[in-house]
């Protein structure tokens, strides 16, 4: 990793510096924890101080915030949404439901570990996390981007077979995706 860091080109450093202060967040509000987002976004905690702002479409978004549990049905939509986003993209798992199922750990319809299906950049623990925790994790994410370590999105291209196998097992069959992940990987020069 160290070696890789030093190999970061100047251009990459500049682009990281710039993009860390301009993050658009697509919040996929499936779980109960989404109720903590309005205070985070609005005047009380005001995450725009950090250059993070909500975005309504996946194609223009940088952060995919998964707030809470995902049923298998919504997980499929999330995977499709994620694949539509432009790289670099960061998945933030919000709440204990995305980490190991949370209080829905024995439910028949919700997935337990988000990182089996999508490469998660950072998790926010808690059920539900307070806005302070959300902002702290966004600060972590910003610092990570600045250091050039927020590279988990490359993992999706590198280990696509792993993610794809998990997705197929859960959805019992391949899903209809509109993105050619293998071709994208070649474009990014990721093997």
């Amino acid at each position, binding site marked *: 990793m160290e070696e890789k860091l030093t190999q970061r080109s100047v251009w990459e450093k500049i682009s990281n510096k710039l993009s860390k202060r301009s993050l658009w967040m697509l919040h996929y509000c499936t779980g109960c924890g989404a109720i903590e987002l309005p205070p985070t976004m609005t005047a009380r905690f005001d995450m725009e101080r950090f250059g993070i702002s909500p975005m309504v479409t996946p194609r223009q978004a940088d952060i995919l915030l998964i707030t809470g549990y995902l049923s298998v049905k919504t997980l499929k939509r999330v995977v499709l949404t994620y694949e539509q986003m432009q790289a670099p993209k960061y998945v933030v798992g919000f709440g204990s439901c995305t980490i190991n199922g949370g209080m829905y750990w024995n439910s028949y319809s919700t*997935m337990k570990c988000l990182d089996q299906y999508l490469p998660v950049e950072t998790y926010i623990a808690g059920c539900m996390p307070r806005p302070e925790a959300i902002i702290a994790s966004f600060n972590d994410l910003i610092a990570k981007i600045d250091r050039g370590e927020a590279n988990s999105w490359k993992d999706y291209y590198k280990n696509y077979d792993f993610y794809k196998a998990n997705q197929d097992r859960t959805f019992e069959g391949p899903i209809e995706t509109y993105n050619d992940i293998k071709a994208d990987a070649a474009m990014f020069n990721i093997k």
Partner: protein
Amino acid sequence: MEYELENSIIDKMQPEFPEAAFTIKKARRVEVKMSSDKLYNFAVRMQKKWNFLHLSAISCVDWLQDNEFELIYHFWNYDEKVLVMAKIRIPREEESHFETISNLWQPAKFFERDIHEMFGVYFDGSEDMERFILTEWHGPPPMRKDFITREYALNFFHYREYDPEWLKDMTAAGEANE
């Protein structure tokens, strides 16, 4: 007289369904148990004759020991403000069958589709018995009593154990308390 309204309703219905068992649960709540072949006739009369215009819900109970499903039809009368629950039992099979009442109440379609995917009771004669909420579901009907949720979840999903050092003292203390 107590339960005057409820008794007057039962007096109206009882002559037409002599073998149905009416019970007053509490004020404005009347339960009726009948054999399953009478239900459709009962529903027709409820709507057309006794003015129970609203079908609030159809619910299903899985009686595993009796090997039966219980279907409960909730009828509501706007004028008298009384709820009548018609309870019937049907045999519990791999795919149980019962007749639809969706030609009487359109909303019954949704209740029936829901019961079909949750309990595996097929309603004959309904226009549409497609999946309703569990469109991506491949397992057995999940609301059946013999479907073990925990077993299914642990087999089907990847599960991460979480047992850190700092939690062990607290867990031990909690267990000692029990």
